[in-house]
């Protein structure tokens, strides 16, 4: 209890509250402008958080990302362009509701279900993370190796590209992560005599490159569609008949929250995947699947709750094991290290106050979402008219300053641009960026635990399965790799028999 009170004091400091409020507004703006992603905004925020205390720094990212995920529903409803990928699953339902003259209730449902999902995910995070941390205190390099490998495998399997291209993206991330002094022997790898690379490729500039530069290039190259959106002027429009709809679909809100949190906990799967899975489950079990995509509230309620609960769920593996649940937590892990809150079971003991303060910020951000979300909906029409070609040079300028400010080196700016151009080409050619980012974040972790385990086991691979949890994780990881292959072989075997 004392820890909670101390944590609340940290959160309620005027400076922290001011940062939370400012980042909430920034997140609402980013989410409401189609094409700007929450991950890009997170990468851009990092250089500023670098100069803050740990709680406002992580609080800034938590609040901004939660608001951006909700706010992406606004352009989805008003102009049928999802602000971020997290709203893509139910964009048709949202827009059809607008066309039926009900944009208010569509967005009202989004803001309320997002807040409920977010609060549920946070509650799970607050309860599950410390319990898991206690269990993981007994983990050795074997368990950490399998966990990290399971995370990378899930990121590849659940990613948006083809399996082979996802694996290639992951390998690119691992290659970048291996630049610098080798952690076990101290030998410099792929540095070509450059002093700047001895400690590895600068992490935050690379992340800014991965997420900001492709969006700048896309905004410049692709046509700037100016949109005129219908505006909502009365708060009452948002809540007309909402109680009835929420009561009717109360089970869906709960299911969406649970599914979202579980998908969020899976390493590599973020809000967008949670939203799609939740929408698919909702349609599968609905009494009226034929109404989906035509302005029906049921799928909207499921997915709206799922994408925000996934955001909180993703912090469970990030805080407990240092394994990111999605791209945003991949960046957050970097921030946590910089702030001395090294992710892992010990952070719950050594930094209990700060960790609880971060949980409270989550709760606060999700509660703030309702009043600030309403404000954003009422002010949406002018934001949607913002030209992306006007924003692109400003984002680039901020990316340059952000990259420089982390390392105080111009090499960081060049790294940011080179990585960014590469990321743009990857995305244009169906090679997903997320596995590369996870490879970059987790490369050292996987390698260090693999080498340590091999030395401990005297190169005996069976030792990786001798401890019960390590063995279990190993079997799950191998099952994840080989199940698609076995299913494909089974189908090939079945086909001729069925034909016969």
């Amino acid at each position, binding site marked *: 209890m004392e820890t909670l009170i101390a944590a609340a004091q940290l959160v309620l400091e005027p400076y922290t509250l001011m940062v939370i409020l400012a980042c909430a507004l920034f997140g609402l703006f980013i989410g409401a402008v189609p094409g700007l992603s929450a991950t890009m905004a997170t990468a851009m925020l990092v250089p500023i958080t670098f100069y803050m205390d740990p709680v406002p720094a992580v609080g800034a990212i938590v609040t901004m990302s939660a608001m951006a995920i909700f706010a992406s529903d606004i352009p989805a409803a008003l102009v049928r362009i999802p602000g971020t990928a997290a709203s893509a699953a139910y964009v048709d339902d949202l827009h059809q509701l607008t066309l039926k003259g009900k944009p208010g209730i569509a967005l009202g449902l989004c803001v309320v279900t997002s807040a409920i999902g977010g609060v549920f995910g946070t509650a799970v995070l607050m309860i599950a993370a410390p319990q898991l941390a206690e269990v993981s205190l007994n983990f050795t390099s074997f368990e950490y190796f399998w966990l990290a490998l399971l995370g990378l495998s899930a990121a590849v399997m659940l990613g948006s590209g083809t399996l082979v291209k996802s694996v290639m993206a992951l390998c690119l991330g691992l290659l970048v992560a291996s630049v610098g002094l080798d952690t076990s022997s101290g030998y410099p790898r792929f540095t070509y005599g450059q002093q700047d690379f001895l400690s590895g490729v600068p992490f935050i500039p690379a992340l800014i490159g991965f997420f900001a530069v492709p969006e700048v290039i896309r905004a410049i190259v*692709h046509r700037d569609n100016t949109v005129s959106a219908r505006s909502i002027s009365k708060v009452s429009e948002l809540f007309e008949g909402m109680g009835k709809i929420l009561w009717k679909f109360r089970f869906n809100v709960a299911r969406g929250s649970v599914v979202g949190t579980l998908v969020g906990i899976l390493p590599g799967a973020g809000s967008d995947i949670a939203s799609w899975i939740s929408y698919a489950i909702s349609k599968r079990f609905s009494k009226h699947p034929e109404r989906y995509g035509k302005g029906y509230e049921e799928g909207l309620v499921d997915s709206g709750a799922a994408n925000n609960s996934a955001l909180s769920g993703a912090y469970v593996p990030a805080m407990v094991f240092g394994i990111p649940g999605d791209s945003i937590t991949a960046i957050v892990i970097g921030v946590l290290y910089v702030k001395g809150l090294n992710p892992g079971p010990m952070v719950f003991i050594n930094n209990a106050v700060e960790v609880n303060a971060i949980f409270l910020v989550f709760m606060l951000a999700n509660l703030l979402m309702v009043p600030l979300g309403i404000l954003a909906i009422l002010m949406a029409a002018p934001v949607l008219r913002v030209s992306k070609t006007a924003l692109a040079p400003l984002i680039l300028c901020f990316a340059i300053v952000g990259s420089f400010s982390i390392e105080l080196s111009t090499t960081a700016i060049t790294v940011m641009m080179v990585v960014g151009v590469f990321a*743009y080409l990857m995305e244009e050619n169906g090679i997903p960026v997320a596995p590369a980012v996870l490879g970059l974040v987790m490369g050292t972790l996987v390698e260090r635990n693999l080498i340590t385990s091999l030395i401990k086991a005297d190169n005996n691979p069976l030792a990786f399965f001798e401890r019960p949890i390590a063995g279990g994780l190993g079997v799950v990881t191998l099952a994840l790799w080989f199940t698609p292959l076995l299913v494909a072989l089974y189908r090939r075997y079945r086909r001729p028999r069925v034909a016969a």
Partner: protein
Amino acid sequence: MRIHDSLIGLFFVVLGAYVLFEASRFPGMPGQAIGPGSFPMLFGALFVIGGLIIARQGIAEGFGKLVVLNEGWLVPSRAIAVVVSVFGTILLAAFFSQIGFLIGGVLLLVTLFMLLGHRSLLWVAVAVGFVFGIYFLMSRLLLVPLPAGPLF
């Protein structure tokens, strides 16, 4: 900008072969069968295998154009704006301390705004205001030593 899968596959095969070659030259750890090259060998091999699969898929699809540019790339001002963004940033990085953020940033922003069709004086004012605003936020409030260049 769509690149043919055969070229992408070839890129990964060459990259993988290079990683394998480099990693094979890393010294081993004393008394151990593994060393700093073991992990790069693993993903180097994956690059080669994955590259071959992608190239094979590309060849099976047939050769059309090796590089397909989408509509935006064919508009000269937009293509030039991308080139300016990329090389302008790298140039600015190379001469950051000499040019400084204030002059370099304003030059980059005004050039991009012009190329993207925002050509009024208002946009020059936006560029100047934004760059100076960022400079004072970072250098005065957050104490990041951004180079001011010859202006201060």
